[in-house]
């Protein structure tokens, strides 16, 4: 991560098949830990598949799949400290799960219910952010607060490749750089912004290069290589804690799904590109690594999948049985105290409901 090098480093531990390219640090090379990473990946994959099905059957609304990009969230979720603050975008459920967001809360969110962002087990992390790139500015302010409060923590924020074309992306980076704020920016470069391919977004040779405009060091990582991702995020967090300065990671992945369930990627994505990308997807690679290096068995794998599917199924049941919101609840959180005009509007609303009954 040398500021003065334009050759952005690219980090890899696993090849496209999952064969280990170099030795892991001993501290990481622990079977139980590695399986815990894998488990979050599997859980996320199964949740993702289930969520798509729930959308198809009308049980939730539009949903944005993270298929093929799970390693990013897993790495972030496992590498962050509890008191770091996570400012996610909509393909980061792996990290959210790891940080205490409940599966049913994620379903609730995509089910069109604000209560899904009132995380019961996670006080400070931000909810999903719809207007692209705006969350990067929040992260900078959160990093300011952490620094101001002399906490040893980092604000970790993610965005997509399309998001890097927005002014907010650059402003946030530049602000974090100029004010030296403990922020980790992670780009999920999945090659597409809905139907717009990366090469239309920018003439910049990599997205990591963009950090140079803000005087921030950056590295490019194979985002489908869970080991490389985990180590890069861990190292970056460590370095930020030491220097107080922001860093950026470009995680190179591929979107193995429609943009959302409202999209039809066959209109613009070639089957060949998709097939090629599928070869490099993170779950297969990591399983191969576990099998080769930690004698992971098919039986263990099946058991893990079963266990994760059960967890997903349970969350679906919980979600389906959640009570509806109170009628008029959408008035109650507009201000800490409902102003007179809203008291009146809420009353009229409730009266209307009653008349309707």
């Amino acid at each position, binding site marked *: 991560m040398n500021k003065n090098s334009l050759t952005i480093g690219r980090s890899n531990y696993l090849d496209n098949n999952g064969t280990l390219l170099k030795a892991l640090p001993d501290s990481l090379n622990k079977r139980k830990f590695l399986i815990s990473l894998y488990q979050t990946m599997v859980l996320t994959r199964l949740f993702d598949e289930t969520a798509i099905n729930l959308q198809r059957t009308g049980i939730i*609304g*539009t949903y944005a799949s993270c298929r093929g990009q799970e390693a990013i969230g897993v790495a972030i979720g496992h590498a962050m400290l509890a008191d770091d603050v996570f400012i996610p975008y909509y393909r980061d459920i792996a990290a959210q799960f790891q940080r205490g967001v409940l599966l049913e809360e994620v379903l609730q969110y*995509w*089910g*069109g*219910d*604000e209560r899904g962002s009132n995380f019961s087990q996670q006080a400070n992390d931000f909810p999903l952010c*719809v*207007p*692209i*790139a705006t969350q990067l500015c929040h992260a900078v302010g959160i990093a300011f607060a952490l620094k101001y409060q002399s906490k040893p923590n980092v604000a970790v924020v993610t965005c997509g490749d*399309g*998001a890097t*074309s*927005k*002014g*907010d992306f650059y402003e946030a980076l530049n602000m974090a750089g100029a004010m030296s704020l403990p922020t980790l920016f992670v780009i999920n470069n999945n090659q597409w*912004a*809905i*139907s*717009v391919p990366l090469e*239309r*977004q*920018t003439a910049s040779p990599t997205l990591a290069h963009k950090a140079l405009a803000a005087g921030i060091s950056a590295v490019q990582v194979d985002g489908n290589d869970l080991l490389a991702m985990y180590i890069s995020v861990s190292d970056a967090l460590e370095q930020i804690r030491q220097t107080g300065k922001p860093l950026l990671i470009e995680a190179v992945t591929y979107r193995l799904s429609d943009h959302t369930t*409202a*999209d039809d990627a066959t*209109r*613009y994505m070639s089957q060949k590109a998709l097939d090629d990308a599928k070869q490099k997807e993170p779950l297969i690679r990591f399983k191969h690594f576990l099998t080769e290096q930690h004698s992971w068995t098919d039986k263990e794998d099946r058991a893990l999948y079963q266990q994760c599917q059960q967890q997903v199924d349970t969350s679906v049941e919980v979600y389906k049985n959640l009570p*509806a*919101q109170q*009628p*008029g*609840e*959408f*008035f109650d959180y*507009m201000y800490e105290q409902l102003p007179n*005009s*809203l008291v009146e*509007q*809420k009353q009229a*609303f409730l009266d*209307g409901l009653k*008349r*309707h009954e």
Partner: protein
Amino acid sequence: MNEWTMIEAINHALAFQLRENPNTIILGEDVGVNGGVFRATEGLQQKFGEQRVIDTPLAESTIIGMSIGMASQGLIPIPEIQFMGFIYPAIDQILGHAARLRNRTRGRLSCPMVIRAPFGGGIHAPEHHSESTEAIFAHIPGLRVVIPSSPARAYGLLIAAIQDPDPVIFLEPKRIYRDGKQAIEDNGEALPLDTCFTLREGIDLTLVTWGAMVKETLQAAEQLAAKGIDAEVIDVATIKPLDIDTIIDSVNKTGRCIIVHEAAKTCGVGAEIAALLAEKNITSLLAPIQRVSGYDTVMPMFQNEHFYMPSTERIINAATKSMEYR
């Protein structure tokens, strides 16, 4: 004649103008290969090429800012903002430049462009995909704000907007994009940009509305008719500049007025219409002017969006209350 839905009518109006005038350019996110997330621009890139229908980077401020530059040099850009909820990064450019370039240069440069954006709720979309903030644009001097409510009006008003020499915010009520077809001649005929449409004549009460709410308002009028209340229904359509005269004439006749809109109540366009009536028409009013509108809350996520959006029932209740007033 063609039987088109609103989204098809929009697509054909765009195609007509692209054919008609080589200076017309469509640009925005996903408008090219993908044909727009609602398919408003479907097939246009294939037909007119990558230089005329352009997939841009994800950058609303610059999509509008560069459209201003294009317009100043003789092109007619038609930028699409994917959802109205994402137009705000571009407000600075719209308010600060698009709306001002002609005045700032005393006519030396001008800004003929049409900013298209789907808006409004009711399609079970995620947060920020369902809001209606036409009032913000109606407040800005120098803009036109146009909202169609049927396939034919979408076609004729969009043609007019593209041919207009000034910047137009063209808001498309996405809830009714595919809500029925209408017979339309693809002849490039423009509708006027300064006239309300009276969709139903009546003598007891004036219902003023626009966009997707025209549907519930017409339904309410039908149900009111069954109760013997004969409502006039006006589709404002050209929100800015506003044709208040048609509304005044109607209220002169009926004496009662209800304004229906999806947007939040406070400082919505309904307030302006009510204020103009209170200024110009007060003697003919037989009852208070009511607004049936969204509440002053964030548009709820979709589980509860139906609670927010004015229903036929709310309109009827307001109308009944108005008729009972004396």
